[in-house]
């Protein structure tokens, strides 16, 4: 019997495995009709212990487009979890009904714990502030599709780089490719944690620059990954007022950027990207959402062993 494969951490897949996954996702985009029934008779369970409509819909749409079916809950209040059922019991039970599980949980490490008891492949669909590997797959696949490569890129990460788990995962993931440079754009209070700099960037001899203002560096960038800056993360009002406009991408700032820049955002956005940017061909964040679904389709196929 082959070992069950899960996706718990963005680093679970090697660069080679990721490439296979992304070429499959690309094949799906090129000929979706060929994949419409490949999961006929298969069931995905979406176990969402905290609401996340966006991620849940992406998983469910992915499975439905492959011809599979979906069961699950979108908040623990409507399930036996409220009666105090443990994760192992829930997973063993649900695992008896379905072929694959996508699990979101507010507690860090819950999907890893669940995977020890799961009789079927389990995907971490986000565990608190810890990991969100399918967001990383989404980001990587978007980079691949818009830039055609993973190497020789200058990537700007802008906004909250301290608490943003998607930013940390993306740095780790992109550090595995050649000739990558990072420009880290954030207020002092929201800089990338030291361990990312020492253990990932310095250890892999990756060039990086830390700046406070987007307009100073936007012309260098091949990719701009925007995140939300929340007022409550600042220590004082004065700093927030001084810096808040530096983290809003608008047409004026975009005038300084390269013609082939790709703008990404994990969404939802609040005001960090002006609506006027949406129609610019460099805005890729809605395409990113679609790429996320295709990446999840490919992931489901891989973990089920269908492809």
């Amino acid at each position, binding site marked *: 019997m082959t070992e069950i494969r899960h996706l718990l951490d963005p680093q679970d897949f090697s660069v080679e495995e990721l490439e296979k996954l992304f070429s499959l996702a690309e094949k799906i985009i090129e000929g979706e009709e060929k994949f419409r029934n490949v999961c006929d008779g298969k069931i995905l369970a979406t176990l969402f212990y905290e609401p996340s409509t966006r991620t849940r819909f992406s998983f469910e749409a992915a499975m439905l487009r492959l011809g599979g079916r979906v069961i699950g809950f979108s908040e623990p209040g409507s399930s036996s979890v409220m009666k105090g059922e*443990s*994760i192992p019991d829930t997973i063993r039970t649900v695992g008896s009904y379905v072929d694959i599980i996508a699990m979101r949980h507010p*507690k*860090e*490490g819950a999907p890893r*714990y669940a995977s020890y008891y799961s009789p079927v492949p389990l995907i971490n669909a986000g565990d*608190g502030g*810890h990991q969100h590997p399918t967001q990383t797959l989404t980001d990587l696949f978007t980079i691949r599709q818009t830039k055609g490569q993973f190497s020789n890129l200058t990537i700007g990460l802008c906004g909250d780089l301290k608490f943003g788990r998607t930013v940390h995962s993306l740095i780790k993931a992109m550090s595995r490719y050649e000739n990558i440079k990072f420009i880290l754009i954030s207020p002092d209070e929201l800089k990338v944690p030291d361990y990312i700099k020492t253990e990932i960037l310095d250890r892999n001899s990756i060039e990086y620059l830390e700046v406070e203002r987007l307009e100073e560096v936007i012309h260098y960038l091949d990719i701009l990954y925007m995140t939300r800056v929340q007022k409550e993360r600042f220590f004082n009002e004065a700093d927030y007022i001084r810096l808040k406009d530096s983290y809003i991408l608008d047409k004026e700032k975009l005038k300084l950027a390269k013609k082939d820049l790709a703008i990404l955002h994990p969404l939802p956005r609040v005001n960090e990207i002006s609506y006027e940017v949406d129609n610019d061909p460099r805005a890729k964040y809605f395409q990113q959402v679609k790429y996320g679904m295709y990446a999840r389709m490919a992931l489901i196929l891989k973990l089920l062993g269908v492809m």
Partner: protein
Amino acid sequence: MLYIDSIVRGIVIDHIKPGYGFSIFKYLGLDKADFTVALIMNAPSRKYGRKDLIKIENNIDLDLTMLGFIDPNITVNIIEDEKIVEKINLSLPEKVEGIIQCKNPRCITSTERSIIHRFILIDKDKGIYKCEYCDQIYSWEG
């Protein structure tokens, strides 16, 4: 120098960091032993200056993982007929289960009832472990 008889058959836990002897003594349940035991604190040591050591006149089962985690510099000597027949040098264990608790309130270990707290050694030189579930760092030296 304080003189304590050598033992005929049993175990000597040597090179314990000064101050740790008593907690190991308690952890091994030696305070309730019905055989001869000795806890020696602050004995002179050529290697470390001072050391604690425990002499046990009996063969008991030792959890070497736990001992290695408390103090990786410990040496365990197995004694037969007043002679050392085996010398075990401990080291930090690769994995520790159910010994330390994850302090991250957002970790799944904080809510699941029967979960075993498990830490993985990630830096042998600095004695750094991480929680298997949430990656929270635990430093052996505190």
